[in-house]
């Protein structure tokens, strides 16, 4: 199915997933206007949100199944496998977050079904980021996502910590958005266009590879994106915000938000700046700083939530290695790693959400002692997550790291590859104690884990994630093929898109 995006009908077809999700979000907003008082209303809203994610994913699948492709001059939205796969990732993460939040919201008495509306809108923003082939669309998606997540971070209005997190995230996020926008403005100034494919073509035809204006613009773009993915040295907000936000929201921020920023970064670098080599060094430097900084600081954390926050920073560093590799295997590894990391981190935050109780979510690692005897399945799931984050063979985390390592080696980035392995070893110093405490220490009291219960929905979500982790760890081929196809689609269509009309 070839879509001519200059025709309204074809453009609407290409935008069908986004339109679908917008429609659902508006419907949910109206429903919520009437029903926002009881726990039952929360469940209704959650159910509608799940239906929204499921139908939108089905529409994306329909486009993918018909191998939809774009044709026409410099479209605003891309129609390629990369967009479909990242859409699935965002929608899946959103759906899992809904499952995890149902019980949590009721337990914490957060009777605000707007939570799910904001979740839908932020996923909509992510889809625009992953699919936008114009810097303006990417920026629009980024703002839509960010504004929703600012509110989600502070949705617990009774908690001063959450308010602090939301305000901090908002102020710094707005600042980072300004950097990004200024970068877009300078790139526009240098090339005369905001379309990614056209920027790429202009850079080649005008020989702008070392143009000052373009490089400054590119650097500002990188600052904006590095902030969103929490890469060192733009990570200062992350631990505090992750710590203060409600735990399911933290899980969502650490996975989907980060994945969306990475997807947009990857598309921008791959399509607009493929011939501008300057960013390879910047991204490599960011990767080194992020891997070292994230892992070393994570070692010192006693709180499980803060440890996971720093661990997510460290993982951003690993993904940056895949970005810096800049070759085909790096691109394939990139999407694979995002999926593996998302499943792992979301499950870990889900388990953390049930352990932290009664509004106080400050769970120390030592609080987990004896979990294995009291709640063997929970402990097992958390252990699998920790092993996958560590990159233990047999889990998806290992395969992801392995592919990144291969990509880095292929592009002769030996330093990055060596550092990735070394920092992974360091990370064992904070992942393994979690397992050790759970399995080798007795519970401090008989009732220490009495109220730790996942509930049916969250249990299903965690089971899904853990089974996925183990499955992709043993049979990664299908997922790798899919992500390789997605990465490939990002590289090929530019030539067709750049051809001026009438040629």
């Amino acid at each position, binding site marked *: 199915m070839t879509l001519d995006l200059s025709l309204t009908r074809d453009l609407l077809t290409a935008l069908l997933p986004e339109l679908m999700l917008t429609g659902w979000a508006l419907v949910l*907003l*109206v429903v*919520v*206007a*009437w029903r926002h008082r009881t726990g039952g209303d929360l469940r209704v809203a959650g159910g509608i949100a799940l239906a929204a994610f499921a139908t939108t994913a089905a529409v994306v699948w329909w486009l993918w199944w018909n191998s939809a492709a774009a044709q026409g001059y410099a479209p605003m939205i891309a129609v390629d496998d990369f967009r479909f796969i990242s859409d699935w990732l965002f929608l899946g993460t959103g759906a899992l977050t809904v499952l995890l939040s149902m019980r949590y919201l009721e337990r914490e008495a957060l009777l605000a079904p707007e939570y799910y509306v904001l979740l839908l809108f932020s996923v909509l923003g992510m889809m625009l980021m992953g699919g936008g082939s114009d810097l303006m669309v990417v920026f629009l998606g980024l703002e839509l996502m960010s504004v929703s997540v600012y509110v989600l971070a502070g949705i617990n209005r009774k908690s001063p910590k959450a308010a602090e997190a939301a305000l901090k995230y908002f102020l710094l996020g707005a600042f980072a958005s300004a950097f990004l926008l200024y970068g877009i403005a300078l790139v526009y100034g240098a090339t005369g266009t905001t379309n990614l494919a056209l920027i790429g073509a202009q850079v080649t035809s005008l020989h702008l590879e070392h143009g000052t204006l373009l490089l400054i613009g590119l650097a500002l773009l990188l600052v904006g994106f590095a902030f969103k993915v929490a890469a060192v040295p733009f990570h200062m907000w992350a631990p505090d915000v992750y710590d203060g936000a409600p735990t399911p929201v933290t899980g969502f921020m650490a996975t989907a938000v980060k994945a969306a920023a990475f997807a947009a970064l990857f598309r921008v670098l791959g399509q607009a700046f493929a011939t501008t080599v300057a960013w390879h060094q910047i991204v490599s430097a960011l990767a080194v700083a992020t891997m070292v900084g994230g892992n070393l600081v994570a070692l010192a954390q006693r709180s499980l939530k803060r440890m996971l926050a720093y661990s997510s920073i460290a993982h951003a560093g690993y993904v940056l290695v895949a970005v810096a590799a800049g070759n085909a295997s790096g691109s394939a590894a990139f999407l694979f790693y995002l999926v593996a990391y998302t499943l792992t981190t979301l499950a870990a935050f889900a388990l953390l959400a049930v352990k932290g109780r009664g509004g106080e979510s400050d769970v120390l690692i030592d609080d987990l002692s004896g979990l294995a005897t009291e709640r063997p399945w929970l402990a097992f799931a958390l252990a699998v997550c920790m092993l996958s984050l560590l990159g233990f063979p047999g889990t998806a985390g290992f395969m992801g790291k392995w592919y990144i390592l291969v990509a880095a080696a292929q592009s002769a980035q030996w330093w990055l590859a060596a550092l990735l392995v070394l920092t992974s070893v360091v990370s064992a110093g904070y992942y393994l104690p979690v397992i050790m405490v759970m399995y080798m220490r007795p519970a401090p009291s008989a009732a220490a884990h009495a109220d730790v219960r996942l509930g049916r929905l969250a249990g299903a979500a965690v089971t899904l994630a853990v089974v996925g982790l183990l499955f992709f760890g043993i049979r990664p081929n299908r997922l790798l093929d899919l992500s390789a196809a997605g990465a490939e689609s990002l590289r090929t269509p530019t030539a067709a898109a750049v051809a001026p009309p009438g040629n």
Partner: protein
Amino acid sequence: MLRPYLPFLLLLLFVVANAAGMIGLSHLVGPKRPTPLKDAPYESGMPPLGSARERFSIKFYLVAMLFIVFDIETVFLIPWGTIYFGGAGGALRMGFLLVEMLVFLAILGVGYVYVWKRGALQWD
């Protein structure tokens, strides 16, 4: 060269003359019965003296935010109207323009319904 800007100059002059005329006329013609309260400087209905670091009710911010949202709607309607009623383009294009604006208004309508039902428009 500056001739196209003549209407702006005229408008500017008219506005200044209009304002000056109104204030001047009411000063000359209007009756004056001063009291101490009336002589106090006007400060939007608040007591004019006291600490400037008072806390405002959050409702003011809410109203201001909602005002901006619906104000922008009106601002969008005006350029749309000049294009739509200017009649540039064929019937198909006009239909597209109309549907686009209706969708925009519907989305804002959803926001309005939400704000209303959630009680953000009620002061108490």
